[in-house]
């Protein structure tokens, strides 16, 4: 099993319960081999490009929700 720990070496009782300082991208994320070829992925992205909202910034900013369980 992988042994690269990504947590703080120790933690004291009085530390706050906020989101822990774990790196955003795990080490395996970018190095993991895709089982598909680059050409396949590019073809897929080209198709997704055609349906992706054209103004991403505005689309993302406008997506606001209230309430929820």
């Amino acid at each position, binding site marked *: *099993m*992988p*042994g*690269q*720990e*990504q*947590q703080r070496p120790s*933690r004291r009782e009085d530390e706050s*319960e906020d*989101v*822990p300082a*774990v*790196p*955003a*991208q*795990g*080490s*395996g*994320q*970018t190095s*993991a*081999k*895709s*089982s598909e070829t680059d050409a396949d*992925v*590019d073809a*897929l*992205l080209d*198709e*997704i490009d055609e*349906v*992706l*909202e054209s103004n*991403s*910034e*505005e*689309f*993302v*900013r*406008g*997506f*606001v*929700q*209230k*309430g*929820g*369980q």
Partner: protein
Amino acid sequence: MTVRRVVGIETEYGISVPGDPGANPMLLSAQVVNAYATATAGGRSRPRWDYEDEAPLRDARGFEVDRARAHPSQLTDAPRRATPNASDVVSAETEDPTMANVILTNGARFYVDHAHPEYSSPEVLTPRDAVRWDRAGELILLESLRRVAATPGLTPVTIYKNNTDGKGASYGTHENYLMDRATPFGDVVRHLTPFFVSRQVFTGAGRVGLGQDSREAGFQISQRADFFEVEVGLETTMKRPIINTRDEPHATVEKYRRLHVIVGDATMCEVATLLKVGTTSLVLAMLEDGWLERSPAGDLPLSEPVRALHEVSHDPGLTHLVRLRDGRRMSAVQLQWAYLEAAKAYVEDRYGADVDADTAEVLTRWEQVLGRLETDVFSAAREVDWIAKLRLLEGYRSRDGLDWDNARLQAVDLQWSDVRPEKGLHRKLAERGQVETLLREEDVRHAVDHPPTDTRAYFRGECLARYGARVAAASWDSVIFDVAGRGALQRVPTLEPLRGTREHVGALLDRCETAEDLVAALTG
């Protein structure tokens, strides 16, 4: 029972008006639900929801929260008070959004919950049926969206099967499992906590942004994990707990407990939904049977479960080791292997070669997905939402040199779950055969209008389909008739979820032409 168990999935959908982030979400949600109901009911009066047996403040730990001290959002048995700022929007001119509440002929409830349209699936018995009626919900939301768009005067909306806006708001996808009331609740907490913390590795829907309000850029496994703050509790809208204690079985109280699971994500991948329900059902079966007590999987107490939930979600490399109270450290995948090994041994011991196909399927797929996660994360991209989504995101990042804070990546995250097939990225992958599907589309479409045949949802749905004009109200555990010749409404309790099946009442319903005939037959 093994993976066979009374289960339902309820989903609050995200709703948005392009170009108008300030639009009133309650009114929009009511518009969505009403557009569907009006189109399907064909003008007849609509049965109301029966709140008679609701008890949202009853706690599984053996007490009831004082009504005066509860947050208004907890009072789901009094909808007007449960909605935030209801007085702001309810007026003589606008239809009361809290009345947007319909019971569908497939046995589901479709209504406005707080500020979202919510689809609560009918009760089903198998993980495959859970997937089927959950997917039927996607089609119902799609049809609603189209009805709204086609109606002059209504504001067109877009709808998403996700769990956060990335700005601090989260809305839930809840699973409900009926289980044996006799199982001590402390055992439920002890055994399910490590299971829920670790199951995200295949149930996570994937999310761009870290922290409740995405204050850090990056990608994490779960949509919901960052919103959980305590280990056990009754709340669902704040201080969210990994184990929720709401004790409202909607069934015979002495016999059943309804385990209300709020820690899951809304999943688009059919295999992920199958595994979410199937593996949880298996763990519950082992719990009820006392099997976990004698298994290594019964001894995995985490030292800080909430922290571990966040850490696992923030580790798409799957290398993080969570700390157990006894000092051991294990990865989420290792924790899952422990539960899988226990389940395999359990099923072998109890059923051997006679195992049913649904249980065998869940065990096989559980083992396959864990194997893939262990060897090459991306090899599970056909089955697991967060991995399929991450593959797209990494594709963009490497093709266009994007950083994690790029809005296009957040747009991919949102659009993953857009219910419109021409826009939804998961649907696009499904059309290309890049994610695995389990069901034929015609079977999903059939589930939009028809109930499962093997639970009480059959009775509810068929009564609505056959005698809808005479149904005054209904709920999970009742159908109330308003029939000629009877002064009072006639309430038919349906407290036993395994009665009211087609086998049980199909012939009776076929024999009764009218609601009057049915009520006469039922009351003798």
